[in-house]
C-alpha cells in the first residue's frame, strides 16, 4: 500500500490541495498535481503512479477523459474520475473509459477513503 504514488489531476489549486491532503491523511504518497492533460501525461510518464485521481473538466481543449485514456493505454493505471456534473452525456463518456470509480463533487472524506481502499485492494 505504501508502494507507488497517487497522481492528482485537477486544474483548481484549492480543490487539488484538498484532495492531496485527503490522500496524505489516508497515508498515500502523492506524486504531484497536474492542471492539464499534457502535464498529467508527463507526470504519469515520470512517476508511473499506481492510481490517478482525475477531474473531468480541465484547462485546455482536451479534458480528463482524454488524459485518462492516454494514461490507461500506456500503463493500465486505474483512474478515479471526479466530476461536478451528473449530466448523462458526461457520465456516458466516463463509463466508456474504463473508470475504476466515479465520484461526484462534493467529495466526502469517507467516500473517497472507501473507494481508494477498494481499488488498491484489487491490486
Amino acid at each position: 500500500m505504501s508502494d507507488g504514488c497517487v497522481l492528482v489531476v485537477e486544474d483548481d489549486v484549492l480543490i487539488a490541495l484538498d484532495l492531496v491532503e485527503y490522500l496524505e491523511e489516508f497515508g498515500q504518497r502523492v506524486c504531484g498535481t497536474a492542471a492539464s492533460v499534457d502535464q498529467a501525461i508527463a507526470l504519469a510518464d515520470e512517476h508511473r503512479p499506481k492510481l490517478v485521481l482525475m477531474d473531468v473538466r480541465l484547462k485546455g481543449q482536451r479534458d480528463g477523459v482524454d488524459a485518462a485514456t492516454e494514461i490507461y493505454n500506456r500503463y493500465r493505471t486505474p483512474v478515479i474520475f471526479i466530476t461536478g456534473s451528473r449530466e448523462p452525456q458526461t457520465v456516458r463518456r466516463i463509463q466508456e473509459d474504463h473508470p475504476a470509480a466515479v465520484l461526484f463533487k462534493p467529495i466526502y472524506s469517507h467516500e473517497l477513503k472507501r473507494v481508494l481502499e477498494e481499488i488498491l485492494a484489487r491490486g
Partner: protein
Amino acid sequence: MPESEIREEPTVEAGREPQRPRLWQEPRAILMALVVASSVIVAAAWGIVGFSDYWETLDEAKTQTRNIASLLEEHALRTIEASDLAVLRVRDYAATVGMATLVSSQTAWRRFADMAQNLPQLGSLWIIDAEGRVVTSSLQQGPLPGSYADRDYFKAHRGGASFFVGERLVGRATGKPFFSISRPYWSPDGSFAGIVVAAIHVEYFTNFYRTLNLGPRSVVGIFRRDGAVLALEPGSLVAPGTRFAGLSQAPQAMTRSRTFVGRLPVDDVERIVTVRELEAPLIVSASISRQAALDDWRARLLRNGMFAAAALLAIGGLAVLGFRSLGREARASLALRHAKDELAERVEQRTGQLRESNASLRETVRHRDLLLQEVYHRVKNNLQLLDSVLSIQSRRLTTPEAGSVVADFRRRIQALGLVHGQLMKAQDLATFPVSAFLSELCENLEKSSGAAERGIAIESASDDMPVNLDFAIPVGLLVTELVSNAVKHAFSGADGGRVRVSLRHRSDDRIILTVADDGLGFPRDGVDRETSSIGMRIIDGLVAQLEGQMDIRMEGGTVVQITMPKPEFAK
C-alpha cells in the same frame, strides 16, 4: 423562448409575365371582330335591300305601265266606239231621210249637226259624196268647195274599207289637231255613194293623258297600226305626221301587250314601255322614264344609306368608347400588376428582415443562455472552492466543536452549490424538478452528516413539482438544517435509523414539507446548545421567508412539518 418561425408564403414570382391570352380571348380582338362583323352586316343589309328594291321598283314600274296601258285601251275603245256610233247614226239618218233632204232641209241638217254636239271628243261630222266633194258638215250647212278624193281615207273607202282611222291633222277652221274616223255609205242600189267622217279632238286624248300624271319624262300615246301618231302626251316631243315604225309587232288581234325597257324614237331617254295593240287598228302605249321610276328607289336607297351610316357611326362611336375603356382597363391591370409585384417585393424584404432579426434574437437568447449557464457554473465552482478551503481549514482545527461548526457550514454551502448545479441542467435555466433536487440533497446529506457511517438512512419522496432558485434555496437550507439536527440528536449510538424527507403539493394548493425521524426525540437541551441554537434561528428565519408555519410533534420519532403557500411561479 419559443422559436417563432416565419412561415414562407408562396409569393408571386417577381417579373414573371402572366400568360398572354390567345387572340380570340383578347378583348380588343373580340371587340374589333364585333365592329367589323356588325359593319359588314349593316353594309350588306343596305346593299341587299337596295338591290332587291331596285328590281321591285322596276317591276312595279312595269306593272304600272301595263295597268295604264289597259286603261288607255279602255279609254280609246270607248272614245272611238262612241264616235263610230255617231257616224253610224248619221249614216242611218241619211239613209232614212235621204241625202238630198239632209243637205237641203234646215231641220234635217240641224239634227245632223246636233249629233256632233253630243260627244265632247267629237269636233265635227262631215259627209263627202262619191266624187270626193263635201256635201255638208256639222260646222256649216251646205257643200264646200274642193275635192277630198285624193285623201287616203276616201281612197280606202272607195276601195271597200268599211272603217278607217285617219292621220292626225290640224283643222283649217279651228286650228286644233284632230284625227278622223270614217265609214262609207251607199246608194239604194248598193253602189258607193260617199263617206261619213268624224273629226276627233286630239286634245280629248291629251287632256286625259295629262291627268294620268305618270311622272317626269313619261310618255303616253295612241297610234295607228302603221305607227302614225294620233295623240301623244307630251305633244311637244313629236312633229305632226310622225310615224313610229315597228310599233306593231303582232299579227292582227294577236298578243296584244308587251312591256320592255328601251328608247322611244322621240328622244334618248330610257323608258319602261308597255305597247298594247287593240282590236281596232290602234295601238296605245304608256311609258315611264326609267330614271324617274328609279328616283324613288334612289331616295329610299339614300335614306336607308343614311340609316346605315348612322348605325355605322354609332357602332364606330361605341367601338371607340370600348377601345378606350379596354385601354384604361389594360393600364389599370398593368398598374395593379406592378403594385402586386411591389407588394411581393416588400413582403419578401420584410420577411427577410424578420428572419434576420429572428436569427439575431435567437443568437442573443443563445448568448444569454450560455452566459447564465456560465454564471451558474462559476457560482457552483466558487462554492466548491469555498468548500475545499473549509475542508483544508477543518483539518487544522483542534476541538470537535469547531469541527462541527465547520461541518454545518460546509453542508449549507453544499446545499447552495446543489441548487446551482440543478439550475445548470435546467432546460429553461430557471426551474427544475424539486423531487430530483431533494433526492440528490438527501444523498449528499447522508454522506456529509455522517449518517451513512452510523447506519442512518435518509430517504426522500416528493411530488414532482418545478421550483426555482428563490424557492429551492430556502427549502434546501431548511432540509439541510432539519436533517442535520435529526442525525445529530435523534439517534443514540450506532443502532441506525431512518430520516424521511418529503415535499407534497396538497390539493388546497399548499405545500407541506415534512422531515420525520424514527429516533428518540428532539432533546431541546442537548449538548450542542450553541450550534443547535444557531440552527434553530436559521430554521425560524427560513420558515418565515417561506411564509410557512412549523409544526413539531412526536409520532414514533420527531415529525417536523412546515406548511407554506405554493410559490407563485410553480406550474
